[in-house]
C-alpha cells in the first residue's frame, strides 16, 4: 500500500512536490468538488496536476490513500512559532468577529502530519511572508482601496497558509484551554470553598453546652439494661442516641457509633415546639430540627396499629416494650403533623406529654465501664425477641403482614437488594444480627460536600450591569425567607429558586447530622433524610452542577448498603420493608454519570435498575409479592403494583434511551425508544416523532420521513386530536427544514400557530426560520413580541438564547437590549435561571 496525496489546489500540490522527495508521492490525484454551476471563473486549478504524470510508471500500488488535505500541519509544528506571530495574530484578531471564528481545536488533531515535514528554511520564509501578509491586509484597510491588492493577498495566502492555519488553530486551542481552566476553577471554588462565615459554624459551642447538659440527666434504664439490640454495642461504642442535628457537631461525634437510628429518639426530645422558621437563627433552641424530621414521613398510620400487635406476644420482656412508647409517640406526632404538612404550627404536640419521662432516655450515655457488664447480658435475650420480630418480618403470617404493611408502602418501597445485603437484612430482622456489628464499610455515611451558598446569578449580573439600585429591587425567595421545612422547600422549588432550595436542603441535612464534613461519619437514615438527599441531588442535577451532585452521591455507593433499607431499623420502622431510598433517587444515581462523560457507567446502572424492575414485574405476574415473597395480593392491589412497576420500567428505558442518545449510539437509542411504545402506548405519537427527529439529526431524512409517516398513521387511528395535528405539522416543518426549504418550514410552523397561537415551540421555530430567510428584523420582532406578551412561556433559555444571538447580529448596541432582557428576567425568574443564555458576560 502506498499513500498517495491528493491535493486540492494545483498550486500547492506542485509546491509540495518541489519540497519533497518525489518518490514519496508517486501520484497525485486530485479531489474536485463537482462544480454544479460549471461557471467557475478563471482557470480550473485541479487540471494542472497532470504535470505529475511522470511518475505514472510506478503506478503498481493497488491501494491509494486519497488524502484530501495533506497540507494541513499539525499543532506540534507551531512550537517554532515566533513571538512576532502571536502579536500579529492579535492584530489579526481585531479584525475578526467573534461570532464567526471559533474553530474547534480538536480538528487539528485529526490531520495527519506525515507528509508535512516542511524544510525549516521554507518554514521560516513562510513566517516572514505571513508578517507581510498581515501588514498588507492592515494597510489595505487603512488605505481603503477596493480590491486592488487582491493578487498580493493571493500570493501571500498561498505561501503562508500552512503556518497560519497551524497557528490559528493553536491559538484557538489556547483560548479554549483558557476558558476551560476558568470553568474548572469556578467549579472548584464552589466545591472547595468552606466559607468561614458558615451560618452553622457559630453553633458548635452552644450545642456542646447543650449536650453536656444532657449528659447530666439521669439515665433511663430501660435501654441500658440491654435487652434492646442496640445495647449489644461492644466496648467503646457509645450509643449516641440523639441525632438531633446540631448535636453531632459536638462531642457526640467522637462516640461515633450512631447505631441507633435517630428516629428512635427524636420524638423523645422535649422541646416546647419552637417556631421552626426561627430555629436556625435562634441558637437558644437547639433541638427542634429533629421534631421537624417527623413531620414528613412516617405518614403510615399503620405503626400505631402494629404496635399493639407487637406487644401482644406473651413473654415480651420489658425490652420488647421499650420501643413501643416511641413508636406510639412517633406515630402520634406524625399523624398530627401530617395534615398541616409542617410543624411550624407551634402548637404543642402530644409528644410533649411523653417527654418528661422519655427525655431521660435520650441522653443515655452509659458510663463506659458499664458497657462490658452489659455485654454478656443480651446474649440469652434474643429468644423472646425473635418471636416478637417474627410478627414484623413474618411474611408467612398474612394477617400480621396485612396489618403492619401498608399496601402502598410495600408497592413503592419494594426493592431487590443484592444477595449479601438481603441476607444481612434478614438476619437483622430476625435478631440474629445486630446492626451494630455491620462493618462500617457496609454503611452509608453521606455528608454535604460543600456548604457555600448558591447565590443568585441574576442578581450578580444586575449588580454588574444595572447597578446596585436595580439589583436591590430583585426579590426572590431565599432559604432564609421560607419556612425551614418541607413546605418551604416546596415553595422554593415551585418558584424556581432551586439554588435557594439547595441551600435549604443543606440546612435540613445539617440538622439531621449529615451536614458539611460529615461524610464518612456514621449517621442514621430516615425516610425524610433520604428524601432530602434526593431533592438536593435532583436540584443540583437540574442546575447542571453535576460534579457537586456526584461528590455528594458518592458516599451512597451503589445504594445497596443494608442501612438504606427499612429492615435495618426494625425498631424505628417496625414491619416496614424495602428500600428507604426512593426509586427516583436510584434513577438519578444511575443517570448522573452520563452527564459527567461516563455514559457507560450510567448504562450499567440503568441496566441494573431495569433488571430489578423486570424481576419485580415477573414476581407480580407469577402471583407473588414484588420481592418474591408469598403474600397474597388482592387483584386490585396487584394491578396497582403492576401499573407502578411498568411505569417505572418505562422511565428507566427512557433514561437508557436518553443516555444512548448522548453517547450518539443512534442504533440502540432508536431501538430503545421504540421499545418504550409497548409500555406507554399513549406516547406512541411523541416517541415516533422523537425517533424521526433523531434521524434528522443524523442527516437521514428519508428514514425520518418514514417515521413521520408512521406518526401520521398513528394519528389517524386515534382520531384527530389537536395535539396530534400539531405534531404532524411540526414533523413536516422539520423535514422541510432538513431539505433546506426554510420557506416551507416557516409555513408549516405558521400553520401550527393558526390552530394553537400560543404554541411556544412553533413561535420560536418560525422566528428561527425567518432568520434563515434573511429577515432578521421580522424574526427579532416576532421573538421580542412573544417575550413581552407572554414572559411566562418565552423567558426560556432556548428562546432567550436565540433572541440574544439575533441582537448580536443586529446591532452594535446588543448589550443594552440584553440588559433589558435581564430586567425582564429579574422580575419573573427564580435563582435557578441560567444566565448564560443572555450572553452578557
Amino acid at each position, binding site marked *: 500500500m502506498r499513500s498517495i496525496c491528493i491535493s486540492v489546489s494545483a498550486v500547492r500540490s506542485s509546491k509540495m512536490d518541489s519540497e519533497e522527495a518525489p518518490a514519496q508521492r508517486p501520484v497525485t490525484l486530485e479531489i474536485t468538488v463537482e462544480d454544479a454551476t460549471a461557471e467557475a471563473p478563471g482557470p480550473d486549478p485541479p487540471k494542472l496536476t497532470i504535470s505529475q504524470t511522470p511518475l505514472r510508471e510506478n503506478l503498481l500500488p493497488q491501494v491509494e490513500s486519497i488524502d484530501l488535505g495533506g497540507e494541513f500541519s499539525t499543532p506540534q509544528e507551531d512550537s517554532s512559532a515566533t513571538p512576532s506571530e502571536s502579536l500579529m495574530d492579535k492584530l489579526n484578531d481585531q479584525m475578526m468577529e467573534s461570532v464567526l471564528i471559533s474553530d474547534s481545536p480538536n480538528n487539528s488533531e485529526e490531520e495527519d502530519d506525515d507528509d508535512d515535514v516542511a524544510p525549516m528554511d521554507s518554514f521560516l520564509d513562510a513566517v516572514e511572508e505571513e508578517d507581510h501578509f498581515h501588514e498588507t491586509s492592515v494597510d489595505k484597510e487603512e488605505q481603503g482601496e477596493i480590491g486592488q491588492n487582491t493578487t498580493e493577498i493571493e500570493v501571500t495566502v498561498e505561501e503562508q497558509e500552512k503556518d497560519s492555519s497551524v497557528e490559528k488553530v493553536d491559538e484557538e486551542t489556547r483560548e479554549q484551554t483558557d476558558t476551560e481552566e476558568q470553568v474548572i476553577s469556578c467549579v472548584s471554588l464552589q466545591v472547595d470553598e468552606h466559607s468561614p462565615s458558615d451560618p452553622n459554624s457559630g453553633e458548635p459551642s452552644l450545642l456542646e453546652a447543650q449536650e453536656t447538659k444532657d449528659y447530666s440527666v439521669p439515665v433511663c434504664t430501660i435501654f441500658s439494661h440491654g435487652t434492646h439490640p442496640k445495647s449489644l454495642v461492644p466496648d467503646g461504642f457509645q450509643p449516641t442516641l440523639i441525632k438531633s442535628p446540631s448535636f453531632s457537631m459536638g462531642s457526640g461525634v467522637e462516640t461515633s457509633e450512631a447505631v441507633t437510628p435517630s428516629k428512635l429518639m427524636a420524638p423523645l426530645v422535649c422541646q416546647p415546639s419552637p417556631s421552626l422558621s426561627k430555629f436556625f437563627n435562634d441558637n437558644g433552641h437547639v433541638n427542634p430540627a429533629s421534631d421537624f424530621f417527623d413531620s414528613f414521613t412516617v405518614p403510615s398510620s399503620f405503626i400505631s396499629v402494629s404496635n399493639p400487635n407487637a406487644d401482644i406476644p406473651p413473654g415480651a420482656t420489658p425490652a420488647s416494650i421499650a420501643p413501643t412508647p416511641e413508636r406510639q409517640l412517633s406515630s402520634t406526632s406524625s399523624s398530627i403533623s401530617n395534615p398541616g404538612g409542617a410543624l411550624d404550627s407551634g402548637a404543642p404536640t402530644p409528644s410533649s406529654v411523653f417527654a418528661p419521662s422519655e427525655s431521660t432516655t435520650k441522653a443515655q450515655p452509659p458510663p463506659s465501664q458499664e458497657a462490658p457488664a452489659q455485654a454478656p447480658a443480651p446474649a440469652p435475650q434474643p429468644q423472646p425477641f425473635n418471636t416478637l420480630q417474627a410478627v414484623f418480618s413474618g411474611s408467612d403470617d398474612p394477617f400480621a403482614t396485612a396489618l403492619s404493611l401498608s399496601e402502598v408502602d410495600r408497592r413503592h418501597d419494594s426493592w431487590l437488594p443484592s444477595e449479601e445485603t438481603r441476607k444481612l437484612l434478614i438476619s437483622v430482622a430476625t435478631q440474629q444480627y445486630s446492626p451494630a456489628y455491620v462493618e462500617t464499610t457496609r454503611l452509608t455515611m453521606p455528608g454535604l460536600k460543600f456548604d457555600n451558598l448558591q447565590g443568585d446569578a441574576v442578581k450578580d449580573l444586575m449588580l454588574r450591569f444595572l447597578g446596585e439600585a436595580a439589583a436591590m429591587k430583585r426579590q426572590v425567595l431565599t432559604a432564609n425567607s421560607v419556612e425551614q421545612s418541607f413546605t418551604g422547600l416546596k415553595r422554593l422549588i415551585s418558584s424556581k429558586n432551586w439554588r435557594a432550595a439547595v441551600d435549604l436542603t443543606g440546612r435540613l441535612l445539617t440538622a439531621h447530622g449529615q451536614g458539611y464534613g460529615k461524610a464518612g461519619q456514621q449517621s442514621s437514615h430516615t425516610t425524610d433524610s433520604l428524601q432530602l438527599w434526593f431533592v438536593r441531588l435532583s436540584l443540583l442535577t437540574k442546575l447542571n452542577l453535576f460534579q457537586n451532585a456526584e461528590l455528594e452521591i458518592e458516599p451512597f455507593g451503589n445504594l445497596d448498603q443494608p442501612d438504606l433499607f427499612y429492615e435495618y431499623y426494625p425498631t424505628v420502622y417496625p414491619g416496614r420493608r424495602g428500600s428507604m431510598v426512593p426509586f427516583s433517587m436510584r434513577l438519578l444515581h444511575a443517570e448522573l454519570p452520563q452527564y459527567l462523560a461516563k455514559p457507560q457507567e450510567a448504562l450499567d446502572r440503568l441496566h441494573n435498575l431495569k433488571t430489578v424492575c423486570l424481576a419485580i414485574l415477573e414476581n407480580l405476574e407469577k402471583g407473588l409479592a414484588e420481592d418474591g415473597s408469598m403474600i397474597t395480593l388482592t387483584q386490585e392491589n396487584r394491578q396497582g403494583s403492576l401499573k407502578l412497576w411498568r411505569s417505572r420500567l418505562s422511565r428507566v428505558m427512557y433514561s437508557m434511551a436518553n443516555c444512548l442518545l448522548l453517547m450518539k449510539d443512534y442504533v440502540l437509542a432508536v431501538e430503545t425508544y421504540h421499545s418504550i411504545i409497548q409500555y406507554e402506548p399513549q406516547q406512541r405519537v411523541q416517541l415516533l416523532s422523537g425517533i424521526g427527529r433523531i434521524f434528522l439529526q443524523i442527516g437521514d431524512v428519508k428514514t425520518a420521513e418514514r417515521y413521520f409517516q408512521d406518526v401520521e398513521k398513528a394519528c389517524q387511528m386515534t382520531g384527530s386530536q389537536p395535539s396530534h395535528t400539531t405534531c404532524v405539522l411540526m414533523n413536516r416543518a422539520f423535514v422541510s427544514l432538513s431539505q433546506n426549504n426554510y420557506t416551507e418550514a416557516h409555513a408549516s410552523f405558521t400553520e401550527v400557530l393558526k390552530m394553537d397561537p400560543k404554541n411556544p415551540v412553533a413561535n420560536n421555530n418560525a422566528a428561527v426560520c425567518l*432568520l434563515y430567510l434573511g429577515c432578521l428584523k421580522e424574526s427579532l420582532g416576532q421573538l421580542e413580541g412573544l417575550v413581552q406578551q407572554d414572559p411566562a412561556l418565552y423567558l426560556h433559555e432556548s428562546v432567550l438564547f436565540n433572541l440574544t444571538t439575533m441582537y448580536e447580529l443586529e446591532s452594535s448596541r446588543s448589550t443594552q437590549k440584553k440588559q433589558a432582557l435581564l430586567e425582564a428576567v429579574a422580575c419573573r425568574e427564580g435563582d435557578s435561571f441560567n444566565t448564560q443564555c443572555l450572553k452578557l458576560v
Partner: protein
Amino acid sequence: MDVSQAKQEHLLALKVMRLTKPTLFTNLPVTCEDRDLPGDLFDQLMREDPSTIKGAEALMLGEMLTLPQNFGNIFLGETFSSYISVHNDSIQVVKDILVKADLQTSSQRLNLSASNSAVAELKPESCIDDVIHHEVKEIGTHILVCAVSYTTQYGEKLYFRKFFKFQVLKPLDVKTKFYNAETDEVFLEAQIQNITTSPMFMEKVSLEPSMMYNVTELNTVAGGDEGESTFGKMSYLQPMDTRQYLYCLKPKPEYAEKAGVIKGVTVIGKLDIVWKTNLGERGRLQTSQLQRMAPGYGDIRLSLEMIPDTVNLEEPFDIICKITNCSERTMDLELEMMNTRSIHWCGVSGRQLGKLSPGAFLSLPLILLSSVQGLQSISGLRLTDTFLKRTYEYDDIAQVCVVCPYTNNEC
C-alpha cells in the same frame, strides 16, 4: 488599535454570522414520583417548560430550534452560508450603501453577494440583510472579505471592510484498492473514513464509471426488492469510522472484444459521495478519476473460457483456452503440451495453431485427464512464436478437483 478606532467612527455596523443548521434543544429530564418529597412539583415544572415534549416529558430530544452557537467546522464539499447584516447605528440617514462580500481562497477570489447594486438610503436603526451561500471547493484558509461603502448625509464618502478567516477541513479519507479478476472484471474496494467529529449519514456513495466500463454496486445483500444494505439499517458513519464499499466493473462488450487494448493505465471512474449531517446539512465530494494499471499479459494472453470445477479420476475432460495476441505484431504459434505427474494432455503436441494478428484471439478446446485425486493444477502448456523463436510457458493455469467416482461403492 487603529483598526478598532476606525470601526467606531463608522455610522454603519457590519455583522456576520455563519448560518449552520439550527440545533434541536435537548432538555434534562429529572422526575420524581408522587410520593416523593417534591410530590408533583418536578413533573409540573417539566410540563410547564416549553421545551419539553408534552405527554412524553422524559424524552430528551425536544422540538425547540436554537441558533448555532459558534462557527463550528466547515468541510470541503459543504455549503458555507452566512448572514451579513449592515445596520445603521447612527441617527442620520446614510446613502448609497454598497455591501460587497468576497471569498478569498488560496487560488481565487469569488464574489458572493446576491446583488451588486447600491442601496439608495438606510434609515437609522434599519439594516440591509443578505444571506450568502457558497459550496466550498477548496481546502485550507478562506477569508471572507466584506466591504461596505456609503455616503453620509454631509456627502462624505466612507468605506470600511472586515475580514473573517476560517479553515476548510477535509471531511473524508478515501482509500481505494483494485482487484483484477481472471475475466477482465475489475473489483474496486473503496474505504471511506469519516474524519469529522460528528456522525455522518452517507446518502450516496456511487462509482461513476468511465466510458469503458459498466459498474455493479455490491453493497446490498440480495433479498427482497430493494435489497438490504450491507451496512445494516442505519446508514451513518460515526466519527473515525471507516466503511468499505465494493464495486464490480465489467468492460463494455465493445472494449472487451479488444481485450488486448486495455493495457497500461486505464481510467476506471470516479467516486461520487453525498453525505448529510445535522438536520440535513449536505456535503458532496467527487474523487478525481481513479486509475488502474491493467495487469500486464505480455505478448500472448492465455485465459480459460471453460473448465469444469470437479472431474472424475482417470476420465478425460474438456477445457477451452482463449489465446489472445496482445503484441503489436502477427504471430505464428505452435502448441506444445507437456505432461506433469498428475495431469496428462490428450492429443498431439507440437501442432501449429496458425497465424494470429495483433489483438486477435482464438479459442482452443483441449482434453486432459488426471491420474491423481485431489486438487490438481493444470500446467505444462507451451506456446512458441515461430517468427521470433520465442517460447511462452503457461503453468498453473487453473485448478480442478479430481474425485474418485467409485469411492462409495468400493469401500
